[in-house]
């Protein structure tokens, strides 16, 4: 892991590009507020099924997404509201999807774990741990074979690294030199299983490097570090440097899903990590550097809350897919050709 910046270095960095820092702050807040609302709506039974929130980990999606081009592709997991939102899927369509409404990005068929969006090349939303990795390899293969300089960013948790599909995907990507950015969100737990009970090799970047994939560990609570490492890695991947792997060291502040009594970790550990809240941290730094004042913050939160309110309103007023359409989209509606 690159050594963390000193407070002075960070202040200098923020001062050099205050707009970017404020924008990253705003993006993280969009995810946070959207998901806080999701949790409420789950308790109100508006959202059902499984709901996995990303609260605490927002710096990862915010930093990586800001490094991608619109024509790049993204593959994510069941913990993907933030990825979808920051990739550009409208909050309205995301929220309506979780309500199971026809206006949702998947017409209500996918739900929280299966957000998809063709416009932004957002390929899900996969509820099988590690199941998205081979897809990312294939998307990158298609780009490679068609001579396009696009990158596929693939997100997964550290728990996924024990799966055979992880292994096969890393090997294929490396062997064929494919433009995949593997983004491991190491939040230290896979449900209730701590990293050291899941991986004999807990240095995940080292593990990935054993596939001859260029790998780094990054402070995933620091959105600036995430952005910088992702930007460099994306450039390298795009310019033919083969697959890259970034381990983002992060933490989820909430339970694994809405059904998790959290018997497997100490409150103190959670609190320790919450002190490193990526949103509070960056906000504090911007304020300390005089780059964000009370009005600035109020304006950001106002905008974000308005977006979330609008999304909920949109979802609330959504409609149900007609029952007659139950069997639609099992097969493509073929052209008459």
């Amino acid at each position, binding site marked *: 892991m690159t050594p963390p910046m000193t407070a002075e270095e960070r202040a200098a960095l923020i001062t050099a590009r205050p707009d970017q820092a404020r924008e990253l702050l705003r993006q993280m807040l969009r995810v946070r507020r959207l998901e806080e609302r999701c949790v409420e709506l789950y308790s109100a039974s508006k959202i059902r*099924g499984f709901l996995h929130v990303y609260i605490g980990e927002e710096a990862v999606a915010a930093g990586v997404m800001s490094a991608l081009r619109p024509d790049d592709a993204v593959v994510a997991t069941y913990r993907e509201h933030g990825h979808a939102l920051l990739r550009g899927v409208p909050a309205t369509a995301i929220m309506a*999807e979780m309500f199971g409404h026809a206006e949702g990005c998947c017409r209500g068929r996918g739900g929280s774990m299966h957000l998809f969006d063709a416009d932004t090349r957002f390929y899900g939303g996969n*509820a099988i741990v590690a199941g998205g990795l081979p897809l990312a390899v294939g998307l990158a293969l298609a780009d490679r074979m068609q001579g396009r300089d696009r990158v596929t960013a693939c997100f997964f948790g550290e728990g*996924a690294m*024990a799966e055979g599909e992880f292994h096969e995907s890393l090997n294929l990507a490396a062997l064929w030199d494919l433009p995949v950015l593997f983004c491991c969100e190491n939040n230290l737990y896979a449900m*209730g299983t*701590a990293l050291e009970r899941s991986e004999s090799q807990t240095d995940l970047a080292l593990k990935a490097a054993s596939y001859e994939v260029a790998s780094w560990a990054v402070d995933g609570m620091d959105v600036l570090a995430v952005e910088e490492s992702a930007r460099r890695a994306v450039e390298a991947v795009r310019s033919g440097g083969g697959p890259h792997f970034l381990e983002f060291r992060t933490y989820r502040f909430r339970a694994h899903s809405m059904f998790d009594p959290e*018997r497997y970790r100490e409150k103190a550990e959670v609190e320790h990590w919450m002190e490193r809240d990526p949103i509070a941290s960056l906000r504090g730094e911007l304020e300390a550097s005089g780059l964000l004042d009370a009005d600035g913050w109020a304006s950001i939160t106002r905008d974000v809350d308005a977006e979330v309110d609008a999304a909920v309103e949109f979802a609330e007023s959504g409609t149900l*897919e007609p029952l007659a359409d139950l069997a639609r989209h099992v097969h493509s509606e073929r052209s008459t050709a």
Partner: protein
Amino acid sequence: MKTTFREAMRAAMRDAMQRDERVFLMGEDVGRYGGGFAVSLGLLEEFGPQRVRDTPLSEAGFVGAGIGAALGGMRPIVEVMTVNFSLLALDQIVNNAATLLHMSGGQFNVPLVVRMTTGGGRQLAAQHSHSLEGWLAHIPGLRILAPATLEDARGMLWTALEDPDPVLIFEHGSLYNVAGELADDAGPVDIDRAAVRRAGADVSIITYGGTLPMVLAAADSLSAEGIDAEVIDLRTLRPLDDDAILATVAKTHRAVVVDEGWRSGSLSAEVSARITESAFYELDAPVARVCSEEVPVPYAKHLEEAALPSVARVISAARATVGQVEAVAGHA
């Protein structure tokens, strides 16, 4: 004693681990988390991490390790959190667990029990709602169980562990919270025979697992309209209890088969084919099926409900079957 399906399963595991030192439980989050569906809650504290082993996310690896441990003299209970993830372990189940005894000419039996949650109905969408027990029921060398009652939740596991060969237990996710009375001395039950859960004369409704409560509710409604349904709980999906199936058909001469698999290639197809083969001349109407619609299970509640079997669909299938009998009678 008042209990739940979940508690009955847990009691069965506790009992098994107390009875036999060789029994241990292994799977994702069975220990510290308490089980994905809280079935194993408290067992880690009681039996320790050697016998309640949290595994990494490695379905093929730990199911295969269960097979190996069984070969090595242990009596593993392997929990695959849900049938959806068991797709990752099918090579081990089908190519190893099911074949080793036979390939070795009878030398190596595999006394393994694999438990997994199956089924839909909780808005978990297409990748988390499979009902693939019918697939496994196709494989020689395996025994497939589907407990649907508190007695079976409590009693099937020990009998399965005494089986020298691999047994898979499919627990429908909608059953865990089912509560009811269970005898204080409830214990092991047979795993060879289907059960008549409701006696009736007009039509046999044959089902198992998660759809049993729905079928029993349908039978109640049907009785209000004068149709007396007999309800058969298959309990063991492989080998099927042909005697019980044929006995009920011989009695009612009409059958509706209900399961949550997609209709094409459902376990209900097998039951229907067997009835046709062995009791064709007993039938007063074609065997009907109520299965899932042929769509990946959708998230939205109304779509999911429309995709899965329901009380209403069971009732109307039974009505149609009974109705057709009269049509035939009229025509004969």
